[in-house]
């Protein structure tokens, strides 16, 4: 990599969640402020030390400039701020852009913060907006195609091309639920079987209700600063940003180059190259799991198994403890929580907690390197981040 590589230059020094799950009576800004306070307390900083804020859009909030509204609400006046929008991939881009801003001297301490109340906070007007804004109004929306449908068509084609089965997809949901059972505060922790998944109502083929992620309230926040500043602050266990990569292959689902091989191949290739590590070096992963088939395809495209083998890989227990790559150990969007754009931040929270060794009974042994991949809009947007402990620098 060139001298300008971000590898190891920036560290995550604080992480925090708001109340997560069904949290009625709380605005997205209130949840964001709670998560931010927790992340700052975790870092041992005060809000006056924050000079940068990055956020994502919240459906249940009327504010278009969420990062700006948040700063006012939280009582800070940052000199670097933006509200990012690349759908589900936004979470990972918050880390890469935050790190780049620090490396480039635009800010010293960047707060990444997002929250939404999709479960209890959407007024009918905002719910309608969330439904209609996500797909193209001319060439997609008139046909009644929800976002779930675009992902469903990719999974369906994957079944056609590689023989992936409904049972293998269902197993993804089962594994996530088993993981969530060990996570305090997980929204769905009752064990399920593949039969439960296959018997749940069909939403859009091949996806049953239990193949689909949850709808939740909640937020998360992180504090980023330079590796040097983290040292100066005496941070106990900084977690370093080692690699970042993004890839944007299309906007409309009908222009997706391949329905079964996604931009995650390129985004992760770039992240691995910057980090100077291989897929086989990763100890733990957070993989965007909006639907079960999404996970199968990502396990392949992120390099954890070969193309077409994601289904058997999951069925063989390879994405859980003792397997090749323990993934979404908190339960993911499928069972922990999915509050819209902040949903992917829960994967970051979990992977960073794993790398810090703070996961208790969920702890993956000797976790030193972690990958988080977030994506959105029918695989239109893909972003990968690789994180590591001091020993992996």
């Amino acid at each position, binding site marked *: 990599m060139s001298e300008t590589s971000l590898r190891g230059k920036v560290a995550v020094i604080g992480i925090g969640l708001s109340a997560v799950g069904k949290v009625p009576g709380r605005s997205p800004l209130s949840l964001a402020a709670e998560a931010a306070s927790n992340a700052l307390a975790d870092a041992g900083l005060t809000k006056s030390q924050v000079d940068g804020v990055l956020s994502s859009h919240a459906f249940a909030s009327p504010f278009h400039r969420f990062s700006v509204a948040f700063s006012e609400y939280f009582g800070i006046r940052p000199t670097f701020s933006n509200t990012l929008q690349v759908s589900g991939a936004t979470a990972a881009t918050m880390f890469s852009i935050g790190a780049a801003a620090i490396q480039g001297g635009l800010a010293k301490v960047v707060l990444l913060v997002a929250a939404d109340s999709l479960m209890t906070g959407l007024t009918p*007007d905002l719910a*309608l907006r969330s439904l209609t804004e996500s797909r193209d109004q001319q060439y997609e929306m*008139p046909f*009644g195609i929800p976002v779930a*449908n675009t992902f469903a*068509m990719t999974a369906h084609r994957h079944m056609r091309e590689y023989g992936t089965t409904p049972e293998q997809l269902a197993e993804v949901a089962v594994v996530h639920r088993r993981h969530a059972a060990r996570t305090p505060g997980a929204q769905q922790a009752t064990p399920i079987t593949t039969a439960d998944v296959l018997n749940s109502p069909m939403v*859009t083929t091949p996806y049953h209700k239990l193949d689909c992620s949850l709808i939740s309230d909640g937020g998360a926040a992180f504090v980023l600063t330079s590796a040097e500043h983290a040292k100066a602050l005496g941070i106990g266990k900084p977690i370093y940003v080692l690699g970042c990569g993004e890839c944007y292959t299309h906007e*409309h689902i009908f222009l997706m180059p391949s329905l079964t091989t996604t931009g995650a191949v390129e985004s992760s290739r770039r992240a691995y190259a910057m980090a100077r590590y291989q897929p086989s070096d990763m100890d733990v992963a957070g993989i965007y799991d909006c639907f079960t088939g999404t996970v199968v395809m990502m396990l392949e495209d992120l390099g954890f198994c070969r193309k077409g083998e994601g289904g058997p890989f999951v069925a063989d227990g390879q994405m859980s403890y003792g397997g090749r790559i323990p993934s979404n150990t908190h339960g993911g969007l499928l069972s922990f929580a999915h509050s819209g754009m902040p949903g992917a931040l829960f994967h970051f929270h979990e992977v960073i907690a794993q790398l810090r060794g703070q996961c208790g009974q969920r702890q993956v042994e000797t976790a030193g390197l972690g990958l988080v991949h977030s994506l959105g809009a029918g695989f239109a947007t893909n972003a990968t981040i690789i994180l590591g402990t001091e020993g992996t620098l």
Partner: protein
Amino acid sequence: MASDDSTRKPLPAPDADTAAFWRGLRHGELLLQHCRRCRNVQYYQQATCRECGSDELEHKPATGRGKVHSFSVVYRAPGPAFKTDVPYAVLLVELAEGPRMISTLTGSDPEDVTFDMEVELAFDQVSDDVTLPRFRKA
């Protein structure tokens, strides 16, 4: 007001790039853009060729033949407007000319759709101004 909006299906609002496309549909033609410079054939309509950037684009009607590249049968409607339509099959159709497009099946059981099924265009006039391109089993 919100409830009125939520039970009405979203209709395309043509813009400067796409007016010809929606006009073509009203006259029973699905127009594809053929680039005179690089021969690229593209769907949807825009001012320039996505391959070479040329603005020498010629509108030619598609044959209307295609096959199902992928599909998903919707059982839970995306909002009140589509509730009475379920189940319906959303198709990702690969047109004979190459481009793919999204549409829905009309005229036969959505549960009988298969991969690579041959389909042909069907014009569905949904309002005075808008005709949607749908597909029926060929």
